[in-house]
């Protein structure tokens, strides 16, 4: 029977009153040098696998632990779901994890310090194609023409109309992306592009980003988004957070590594 360690997060110091983790597991702290530690539970089984609803519940329980630690200590490097340190041939999992904490202690420490009192905000901006299309003379003309056509022809025309609306909106999205990105960058310490979400029906995605922002600078982002919404009635904005810095737990800075 091997015993692995399921890792929730890397933290600074030794947070107390951790509560419980996934499925009520007892949480422990594995300490490394430089006041860097990992929050774990002992895990004898393999990775979590199960029905979607179970996975959702586990992910939420994982994120609850990350949140609690974050609120207690003000900084955290969240681990992905299902990161489990295995027992080695000769080495217990705890020793392997300590070894890893030791090897990366300085970088982990620096990152934890840099993320102190920072929050992640997620911003998704899309454009409503009907609203954008309504401002385009070609779309309006096609719409008017559609009304005059017999029922049989309309279906095909609607398809073409939808296509034209999307093209017009996509061109506007290209233009707006630069501007919105620049404005959001100006109010963030770091910015990372997320995989583009599937926008709703009739919405063309412009940008999907995570922002790293000092906690007291959150209202500035809200004002920028309100301004964008006021200027562009067709904008569809999703604004989530504040979260622990999930998207910024990796490499400092957004500078891509050198391309040889």
């Amino acid at each position, binding site marked *: 029977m091997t015993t692995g360690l399921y890792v929730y997060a*890397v933290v600074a110091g030794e947070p107390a009153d951790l509560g419980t983790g996934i499925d009520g597991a007892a949480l422990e702290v594995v300490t490394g040098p430089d006041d860097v530690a990992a929050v774990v539970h002992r895990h004898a089984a*393999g*990775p979590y696998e199960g029905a979607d609803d179970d*996975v*959702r519940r586990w*992910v*939420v329980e994982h*994120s609850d632990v990350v949140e609690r630690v974050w609120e207690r200590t003000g900084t955290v490097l969240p*681990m*992905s*779901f*299902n*990161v*489990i*340190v*295995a027992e*080695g*041939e000769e080495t217990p999992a705890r020793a392997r*994890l300590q070894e*890893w904490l030791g090897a*990366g202690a300085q970088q982990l420490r620096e990152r934890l310090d840099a993320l102190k009192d920072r929050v992640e*905000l*997620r911003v998704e901006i899309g454009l409503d194609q009907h609203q954008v299309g309504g401002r385009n003379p070609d779309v309006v003309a096609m719409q008017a023409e559609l009304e005059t056509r017999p029922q049989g022809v309309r279906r095909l025309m609607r398809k073409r109309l939808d296509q034209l609306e999307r093209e017009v909106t996509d061109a506007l*999205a*290209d*233009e707006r*992306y*630069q501007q919105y*990105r620049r404005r959001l*960058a100006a*109010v*963030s*310490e770091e*910015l*990372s*592009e997320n*995989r583009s*979400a599937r926008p709703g029906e009739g919405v063309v995605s412009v*940008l*999907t980003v995570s922002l790293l*922002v000092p906690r007291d600078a*959150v209202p500035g*982002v*809200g*004002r920028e*988004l*309100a301004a964008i919404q*006021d200027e562009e009635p067709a904008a569809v904005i*999703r604004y*989530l*957070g504040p979260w622990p810095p*999930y*998207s910024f*737990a990796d*490499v400092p800075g*957004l*500078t*891509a590594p*050198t*391309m040889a």
Partner: protein
Amino acid sequence: MAEPAAQAVAPRAMEPTRDLGATLPDLLEVLLNKGVYLDLDLIITVADIPLIGVNLRATIAGIETMLEYGMMRSWDEQTREWVRRSVSRHLPLAEDEEIVMRMAGGHRDDERHGTWRPGTVYLTSRRLIVWRADPKEVLWQARLEDVTGVDLRTERSIGGEDRVRLAVTTTDGTATLSAAAPERLHGMLREQGIGPAAPARNPRPESAAHEGSLWYQEQLASGPVWRGGTAVVDRAGGVTWKGALDQRPAVRLRAEQLLSVDVESGRTPAGSAVVVVRTPTGGVRFAAQDPGPWVRALRRASRAARPELSAGAGGKP
């Protein structure tokens, strides 16, 4: 909630939501890595990688895109080894063969009535491969040393649309490949030292004066940061720069917006030359290992848009 009276003095601000009902999909996306080629379960099965460092999380999330942009070379040895291992579970690779780039694509089987066979195009350190995962089959492949030339060709597709294809000439003849981003794959093959096979008989609709890897300086609240990406400068269209993981280009400047192009010195990831482009809305800063061709292409575009300035070279005394 702000009251109407308060709104008169303070501008309106949107409030972010933490409601689990609304945020759960995003939370799942951020905490689960559903990479087809990589799954974190490897951690407890791959003996010599005891733990995926926190620093790998972004890599995993962006892996598809990173592969599509050929940014593998920028990863550390351990990550590359790990990716190689994951990929080779599907696609057989030689011992020292590395993945350089990967994207959706296909091969046109000219021996069978020109039928397109879709799959994934891999560029490795040794081969160019079109691979189909299910059922597993190498649809086409060539060793890079056998590739004598590669060209982009615009063809009319069955649907009547123009599509850019890759014509790969080898010692066996010329194969036609499709790719999600043919220009990028073409650029990467150029970087591997593979030139054109022949004078292009079918020039591309917009002749790109210059394209390749370029750094761009983005302004954050915390200060400027250099970001890697690819750019195209063309005489008619101006300049477009797109970050490797970005959804859309972050810079699009029409030729007439390129007021001047100068080189300044500064610390950049690509050396000490900063290419500064003055535009009506401010300066845009780029950096490249070899800034010369970029400066020339930008100045050509700038002059083409404003012939009255053609006397000056764009540099200020």
